Every structure is written in C-alpha cells, then in structure tokens.
C-alpha cells in the first residue's frame, strides 16, 4: 500500500484573531475517505481550525495543505467552489428565506436546482413537507438538516461539520449522523468537530483531542472518548 496524499493536512499551523493567537502549532492529516473527529472543550480552537481549513482565516505560520497543495492564501469562495464544504456551527441557513429558496442558494457551484431538491428531499423527507416554510421557523434539527443538505447536494470532496449536535435531541443527532455515515461510506473525507465524543463514536475512524489551541492526543475514537470524558470530569490530561 503506497502512502496516499492527505486530503487535508495541517503542518505547525498558527492562527488567531488580530494579534491574539488561538492555534499554537496544530498538526494533523486526514487521508482520503477518512472520517476524522476533532474533539475538545469550549474555546479550544476547533472552530478556528475549520476557519483556517476553509480559507476564512489566514494562518500566521505553518502550512495548510489540501491534496498536497498549500492553500494558506487561497480565498474561501474559491475553495468552496473547488469542493471544500463547511457546515458551520449554529445554522448555516437563511432563516428569512423558505426551505426552497435556501436550497436554491446551493446552486452556486452549477448543480441544477431540481437535482439539489431531489437529493435533499430524498435524504430528508421532512424538509420536503416544509418546503415553503420560512427556514427560521423550522425546528433546530430541521434547520441542521437543511444546512447539511448543502453537503449532500453539491458533491464536495472534503466535508467539515462544526458541532452538528449542538442543542439537539439525541434522536435527531443520531439521525443526522446516520446521513454522515452514509456520506462516509461513499468515500467522502470528513472532518467532524464536536465537544463530546458520544455522537461520533459510530462514524469516526480516528479521533483527536484539541486543547488550548493544539492537538494533545490522537487515536482510536473509543479510547479518545474515554480520555475526554475523564478530562471533562476533572481528571485533566497527563502530559
């Protein structure tokens, strides 16, 4: 088996907001088809990591590589068109537009509206029933489904999900992660960010713990999950 070029790789990446550094040298690599879970507490720098990977934040040091090409200075819209799909924290939708009009927004990369509707509605039938409803009046889970249908509709090559489970009931979270697992089975490379490991255990191949802007542990999701729980319960990380 020859070494495959990682889909996404961070090499000593430092980044932050203004003069404040948030990431202090982040290193990790995601192989093609891999599902990588990045776990960690509030303020660890998970969302910032995704911001860097999607081109919204320019790193101050280190390299961000996609398919072996450095993309430190590539613009986010160009990366999105190439196939980097970020489903942001909270909701990545327009609440004042209807479900249909939100789906229409996903035509930016040239996929036809009818294709997008078909893919989204077959994955999430609940959205079809609510197609003329204002997206802001959907339940939290339905909004997340709508946000995720961008990933299903636009055929990305790298998918990044920021706290899909935030504020949602476990049953809905399980349903969303079922879709993620299907995407993973189709060979898509996925970076999942979560605070808690439970929801990603069934999906992730590899998990990492991020703390204070750097990655502290990488390993089997089940093992990492236990360490993380212990750390949240106050045992802390032994260096």
């Amino acid at each position, binding site marked *: 088996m020859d070494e495959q070029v990682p889909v996404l790789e961070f090499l000593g990446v430092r980044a932050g907001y203004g003069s404040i550094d948030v990431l202090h040298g982040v290193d990790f690599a995601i192989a093609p088809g891999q599902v990588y879970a990045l776990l960690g507490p509030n303020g660890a720098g998970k969302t910032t990591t995704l911001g860097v990977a999607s081109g919204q934040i320019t790193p101050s040091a280190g390299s961000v590589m996609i398919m072996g090409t450095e993309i430190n200075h590539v613009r986010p819209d160009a*990366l999105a068109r190439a196939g980097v799909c970020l489903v942001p924290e909270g909701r990545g939708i327009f*609440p004042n537009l209807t479900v249909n009009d939100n789906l229409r927004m996903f035509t930016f990369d040239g996929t036809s509206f009818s294709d997008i509707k078909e893919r989204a509605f077959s994955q999430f039938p609940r959205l079809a029933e609510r197609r003329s409803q204002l997206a802001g009046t959907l339940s939290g889970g339905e909004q997340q489904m709508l946000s995720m249908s961008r990933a299903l509709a636009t055929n990305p090559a790298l998918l990044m999900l920021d706290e899909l489970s935030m504020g949602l009931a476990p049953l809905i979270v399980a349903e969303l992660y079922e879709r993620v697992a299907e995407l993973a089975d189709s060979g898509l490379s996925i970076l999942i960010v979560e605070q808690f490991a439970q929801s990603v255990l069934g999906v992730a191949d590899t998990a990492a713990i991020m703390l204070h802007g750097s990655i502290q542990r990488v390993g089997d999701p089940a093992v990492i999950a236990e360490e993380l729980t212990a750390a949240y319960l106050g045992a802390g990380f032994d260096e």
Partner: protein
Amino acid sequence: MSDDKTNAAGQKRLDEFAEEVKDLNVSGGLANPERTGSIVGIVLMVIGTIATVFYSIVKQGDLSASGTDDQLHELIQATNNTWFAIWGLALIVIGAALWIRNSLTRYLRYWLIRMIYEDRANTDRLIEALRDRD
C-alpha cells in the same frame, strides 16, 4: 480502512479536486474579474480623455494657428480631428460604464449581505417573541 472506502467514483472526484486546488494555489484564488474590469474601465477613461483633449484642443488649435492656404487640406484635417475626438469620447463612455458596473456590483453585494444579516437578526427576534407568547 480508507483504501477500500475510496471507490472509483470517489477517486475521480479526488483527482479533480487535487487539480482544481493546484490551479487555485497558482492564482491564489485571486483571479478577480471585477477588479480587472474596473481597472480596464479606468484605463479606457484615461485614454479617452487624453485622446479627446489632444484632438479637439491641441491638434485643432495647431491647425488654426498654422494659417496655411490649402483650404481643402485644412478641412480634411479638421474632420479627422473631430472624428478622433469623438472616438475618444466613446472610449470615456465605455470606460465609465465598465467601471461603474464592476465597482458597483462589489458594493451592492456587501449591501445585500448586510441586509440578509439584519433580516436574520430580525427574524430571530420575531421568532423569540412569538415563542415567549405561548
């Protein structure tokens, strides 16, 4: 684990992706047609202004100052100068149109995003208020 997962279709998409990202790195994703458009517009306006001023004032002034007796030659020269000046004016108009189109879209886009953003905040407040009622 990842090897048997990446099937043929997935591999094709990956190759495509690698190719596109490589192109982006060369251009920095910065190939910006709007910027180019507005710069071309400005250049056209400058060239147009120079041409108009040159042919309508400088050349025409030279002509009347030259005081030759060849009336026909002078007439032809004057007509030519007028035509070049008109072409200069046309360049100014085209340049201005290009510039306005390309600089305004950028501004309008920011405006649209701003509006969507405010609308979103408003919708949030509205939904909150409605939820609080019941």
